[in-house]
């Protein structure tokens, strides 16, 4: 059963006659795998995006890093193909693949030419269903992961992020790096990798988006071939976790001319009814590039940084509002003061009507521009499904942005933003910080 939906957005504020048409078909394969499809036959290739909810957060603490290592090994051989033979086969077909392990999901991305579709899917199936995890490949890729872990230990941004997460989500997978530690990664066995694969890549948590030169019927058959032999169920999802860090400044000494700061506190859930108000507020506060107050005050008016940004981070099991910037060691104290002052100003006063209108115009105008290629659209289709949104979300999303009022933002800013609760983790040799 397929349903076709056409998106026609009318934009009111500046009367932009901008129309993005994305015809999403909801497809169910003969074997029962669901997918969203946009047919686009003008270029002879298809972009396929597959995501499994859960990700590295499904790991036990002593197996930290198993999902990350497992994902990195999917392309390292299947059946009688070893690592190099697999790569050579992939190159000969010009099949482009990406495998990624996140905290809340693992994903597989692929682009394949129409002329090579069957061979490309057969090869990709081997990687997803029956990887070999040869011990030599395991040892080699493990060395690469360990090398990343060593590099992160010398990277100020990574150090700030690690410490922030530790303080924010103690005793939860979010507290530690999904790369694992040298100890946990060294202890991982082949069996751990097969277990991590079955825990994370199962049919009860899969979401698919496809865009390109393929029909609904072809996609259904393809998905049964590609994914049909995955396990029916995976591991249970982790517990919810509340943001636990206290406000203040924590410094990690590091020999560098410029300090890196990561800051934030508890956030807002993606399905909160005030999420859109928070989203618009955050655009004005710190996510809007040159249009944001923080960029204006910290960069444009004072020259204290090259870039500053804030982000709503609504994860599956906990949420934050986060920000980040870097300033010279002798200027970062001033930058932190400015951030706190802007935080308080937004919490106390909200936004002006002009700021609200500018943010709404930007956000509603920019939304259709996201739909500008097969790959980007396939990504959006998967993201929507994982958030539990319906296909008509695309048509109503801008209405939700437009419906946000100054009062909504004042309420959500007063509720969400708390300068006293802001935790700053600073890596460097900052001067003048208490």
């Amino acid at each position, binding site marked *: 059963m397929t349903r076709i939906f056409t998106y026609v957005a009318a934009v009111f504020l500046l009367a932009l006659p901008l129309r993005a048409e994305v015809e999403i078909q909801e497809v169910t394969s003969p074997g029962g795998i669901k997918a969203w499809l946009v047919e686009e036959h003008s270029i002879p290739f298809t972009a396929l995006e597959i995501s499994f909810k859960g990700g590295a957060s499904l790991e036990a603490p002593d197996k930290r890093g198993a999902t990350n290592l497992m994902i990195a090994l999917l392309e390292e051989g299947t059946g009688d193909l070893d690592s*190099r033979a697999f790569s*050579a086969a992939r190159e000969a077909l010009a099949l482009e693949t990406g495998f990624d392990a996140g905290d809340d999901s693992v994903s597989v991305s692929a682009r394949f030419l129409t*002329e090579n579709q069957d061979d490309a899917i057969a090869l990709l199936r081997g990687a997803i269903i029956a990887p070999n995890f040869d011990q030599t490949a395991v040892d080699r890729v493990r060395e690469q992961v360990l090398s990343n872990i060593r590099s992160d230990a010398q*990277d100020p941004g990574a150090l700030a992020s690690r410490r922030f997460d530790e303080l924010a989500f103690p005793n939860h997978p979010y507290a530690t790096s999904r790369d694992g530690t040298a100890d946990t990664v060294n202890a991982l066995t082949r069996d751990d990798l097969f277990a991590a694969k079955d825990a994370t890549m199962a049919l009860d948590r899969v979401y698919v988006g496809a865009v390109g030169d393929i029909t609904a019927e072809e996609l259904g058959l393809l998905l049964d071939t590609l994914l049909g032999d995955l396990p029916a169920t995976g591991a249970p999802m982790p517990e919810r976790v509340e943001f636990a860090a206290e406000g203040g400044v924590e410094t990690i000494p590091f020999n560098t001319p410029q300090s890196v700061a990561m800051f934030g506190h508890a956030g807002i859930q993606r399905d909160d009814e005030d999420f859109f108000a928070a989203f618009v507020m955050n655009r004005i506060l710190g996510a809007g590039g040159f249009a944001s107050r923080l960029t204006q005050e910290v960069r444009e008016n004072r020259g204290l940084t090259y870039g500053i940004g804030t982000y709503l981070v609504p994860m599956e099991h906990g949420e934050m509002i986060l920000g980040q910037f870097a300033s010279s060691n002798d200027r970062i104290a001033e930058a932190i003061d400015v951030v706190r002052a802007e935080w308080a100003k937004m919490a106390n006063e909200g936004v002006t009507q002009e700021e609200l209108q500018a943010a709404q115009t930007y956000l509603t105008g920019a939304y259709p521009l996201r739909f500008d*290629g*097969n790959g980007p659209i396939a990504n959006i289709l998967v993201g929507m499904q994982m958030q539990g949104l319906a296909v008509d979300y695309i048509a109503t999303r801008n209405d939700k942005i437009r419906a946000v009022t100054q009062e909504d933002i004042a309420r959500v800013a007063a509720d969400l933003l708390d300068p006293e609760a802001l935790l700053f983790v600073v890596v460097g040799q900052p001067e003048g910080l208490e």
Partner: protein
Amino acid sequence: MLHRILKPLAALACFALPVTAETVTDFTLDNGMEVVVIEDHRAPVVVQMVWYRVGAADEPAGKSGIAHFLEHLLFRGTENLAPGEFSETVAANGGTDNAFTSWDYTAYHQRVASDRLDLMMQMEADRMRNLKIADEDMVIERNVVLEERNQRTDSDPAALFREQRNAAQYLNHPYGIPVIGWRHEIEQLDTQDALDFYQRFYAPNNAILIVAGDVTPDEVRDLAEKHYGPLAPTEGLEARVRPQEPPQLSERRLSLEDPRIGQSYIQRSYLAPERDPGDQETAAALTILAELLGGSPTTSFMAKRLQFDEQIAVYTSAWYSGLSYDDTNFGLAIVPVPGVSLDDAEAAMDRVLAEFIAEGIDADHLDRIKMQSRAAQIYADDDVASLARRYGQALTTGLTLDDIRAWPDLLQAVTPEDVINAAEMVLDRNRAVTGRMIKPELAQ
């Protein structure tokens, strides 16, 4: 004059693929401004890019960083726009904008709904000739640039190492000077430096307009004539002539210790020829050579020998980009596995390079690389913004549209002999810089 030309599809003919969505048109305004239109009507989106044929390699001596600093200042207002108003207006129309500077070019771009192109052109044309810089804004922006240098170079040992290696690569050519500038020179840049550079180089006869997306060439021509057409050219602008390299007769070696790096590695770069108009065959062979030697982390020659067979390296790579106005680089890198010294890693790398030349080319490997090159032409049609970027880069590094069109075929035509000849030509240690990035041993 209006040329309407189909994208290079000859290379795809053997696959009997349909003609793709992309068509490219070009024409020149009376004041000398070149215009290229890349059509893609799948989404109501357009990208405008204005590329200037000027970059860091065209700076006056002692003024390093002025090209990039000026790029920042172009967002600080004109006679008609207040500081910041340019980007605010783009955002208020739902768009995004930015700019970037390299040795050979400086480019400004916006991505908006296609019916906003008129306004984008109006503003971009305005700041081509009407820039206004207040001294107090200049001082703040110079601090922003110094923080940018802090963040992207001084805080990153790998970037510092690249900067040093690059400075050693060029004995005479200004490519040895970093695009962002040396700190002590950035600190001294002022408003007059920026205006001098601006008034000379920001002119329609030194600019290329690229519009990509849901537009027709006729629409673009009408708008371009309306907004850019009235601008006066800079008289007496000649093709760029920079100081060229003398014969390089002696290998340069350098090492940099920094506790901030995760592990030690070796990077080597060789002086190499770039793509020249009507003369791209050597560059095509070097492009294929880099792919064969170190393009893939699993199947390339260096990976096969050094990572898989001998397990000397965790990572190896080779790179080359022919898009450069003057001589470019061919690069190699090796990260040894723990326990293998940098001396042994470098010796193994050199031995494997000699084996590559002695053993000849694996025909299957060459075929796979050519297949990927063909496919890349198809995948590229899905991203019109990066196509626009590639055209701009090629045109500002001295190539013509004919050269861009010829390139895919030239890659397909590269023979094993061409690759070996290119390798023997480029892998000359006398023209190379070998750099060691060293993680200090911990004191016990």
